[in-house]
């Protein structure tokens, strides 16, 4: 039994689509949150940091359960989506994006926050004194200087989104040709005794992980040699 090309190709393409969209959202919102956490003090900041970090340590099934409660037909957000689009989000690949986003956001926020905190505040003051607004300063000084941390966070988030299994399975299920990502396909192929398919997908994921590690390592070492 040779796996059909489509059986291999679909999981790969849906996984990359989910991971790419999720990583883009993580980049925009994660860097924003990281900047706010690093440079602002407000009430409830610790609680907000805690909530965003939580998915890092919660079992993926628990995250999936929470998301189901929020996004399901009876959930607060689920109802909202239903009232706007007339259809539910559960068991769609978009739900997979939400799952991937939730689990990979803390990786971005943590890494980027540390990088932003490491930027000398006097550089920002110097920019303010030269007439730059806070937003100009963030884009001109702070974020460029925290670039390495942000890039590392992006690679980690992407890798995490690609490998996401538990929460995705609970939220978007395992619908062949619709929501079966690589991790999920490996699991079901293995269950069904389709080792050829499992082997191919395992190989792709392993290679990807190796590349991510090499990439983060390279980003880190390039930074060191620059300083």
């Amino acid at each position: 039994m040779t796996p059909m090309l489509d059986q291999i190709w679909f999981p790969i393409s849906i996984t990359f689509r989910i991971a790419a969209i999720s990583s883009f959202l993580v980049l925009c919102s994660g860097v924003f949150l990281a900047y706010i956490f690093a440079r602002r003090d407000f009430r409830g900041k610790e609680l907000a940091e805690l909530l965003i970090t939580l998915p890092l340590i919660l079992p993926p099934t628990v995250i999936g359960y929470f998301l189901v409660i929020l996004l399901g037909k009876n959930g607060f957000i689920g109802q909202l989506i239903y009232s706007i689009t007339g259809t539910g989000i559960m068991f769609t690949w978009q739900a997979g994006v939400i799952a991937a986003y939730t689990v990979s956001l803390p990786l971005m926020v943590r890494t980027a926050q540390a990088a932003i905190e490491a930027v000398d505040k006097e550089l920002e003051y110097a920019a303010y004194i030269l007439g730059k607004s806070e937003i100009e300063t963030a884009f001109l000084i702070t974020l460029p200087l925290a670039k390495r941390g942000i890039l590392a966070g992006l690679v980690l988030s992407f890798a995490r989104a690609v490998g996401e299994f538990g929460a995705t399975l609970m939220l978007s299920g395992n619908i062949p040709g619709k929501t079966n990502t690589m991790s999920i396909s490996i699991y079901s192929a293995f269950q069904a005794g389709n080792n050829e398919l499992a082997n191919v997908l395992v190989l792709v994921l392993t290679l990807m992980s190796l590349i991510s590690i090499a990439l983060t390592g390279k980003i880190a070492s390039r930074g060191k040699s620059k300083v």
Partner: protein
Amino acid sequence: MSIKVNIRKCYHEAGSSKKSGAKKAFMLNVSFEMENELIVLFGPSGSGKTTLFKCISGITEPDDGNITVDSKVYYDKKIKTNLPIQKRNLGYVFQSSTLFPHMDVRKNIECGLKNWNKESREKRLMEMLSLLHIEELEKRHPSQLSGGQKQRVALARALAPEPELLLLDEPFSALDKEIKTELIEKIKNLQHELKIPLLFITHNLEEVFMLADRVLVLHGGKVQQFGTLDEIFYHPKNLHVAKLIGLSNLFDDARVVGHDEISRSTILMSGDMKIRVPSLKLNPGDMVSWGVHPENITFLPPGHEDQDKNIYMAHVVSIINKGPKKKITVNLARHHKTLTAEVPAQFVDSLKLNAGDSCLVKLEISKIVTF
């Protein structure tokens, strides 16, 4: 151009909140006025110099008071005005280099010129590069610059937007002496040339001498004295100032015993030592502190003590070589007092002074400092 500063700022112990009425850890309470001049803020670390700069520049908001530059109100508690940093037109050079590391020298300087049109921006950039003699550094990144070059660029960047006030926070403290001296001369000339008010922070006495029109002495968050170099050096108002200006021979045990109208001097008894000092408006019995700068103690060949001329018998305790000068510590054996003097080396050699020798020291009446 006139600048008025009158501010208070409290810092509380870490971990205590303002509401609990916790003990104040530090209180800055400063008030002064300046014109187009160079004023050196002089004080030990922790005296509030940098905090004052942060309040003037808007990085920190004071608790109370007001800051005005010409007719522009930077801060006024009463009318609830606190101009954002970006709207205060001042130049600031920090102690450590704050050049943006990912931009070259040109981009760094251009940072403050965003509202200038292309032509005038280019012209201004060239002016700044030539003013600070850094034309050849235009394309370099900060990591390719020496410490002195970095601070030149920082100065160019601060001056480029034509600030109405320049704040320099120990900008040269990390530099070699030669480069530091050169840059200090540059600052002094720039101030005369550009005629802008300039505040310069230092805790280094040498820099005070080289730079100051006037000196503002800060200690413990308060202005101890504000005056010309001469006033600070020869008429320190209190012990803090006296210590800061390097007056190492200090005695607080003196009492006025009389006045000598002929020599226009006041006679003090410091312990059992009789000493004449420049005439004081004090009554007999009043307590007074006196001191003498190490440079103002002279050595005479052995002879007789003459307390009416401030000449005393002394034993040399030690002689330390300090390059062109020697630091001599002497004991006034009969008065249980120790003095340190700084004397040109060749003078010590000609007197053939050695540790353990007896000699005479003279404290020049006119050079004795009292407060």
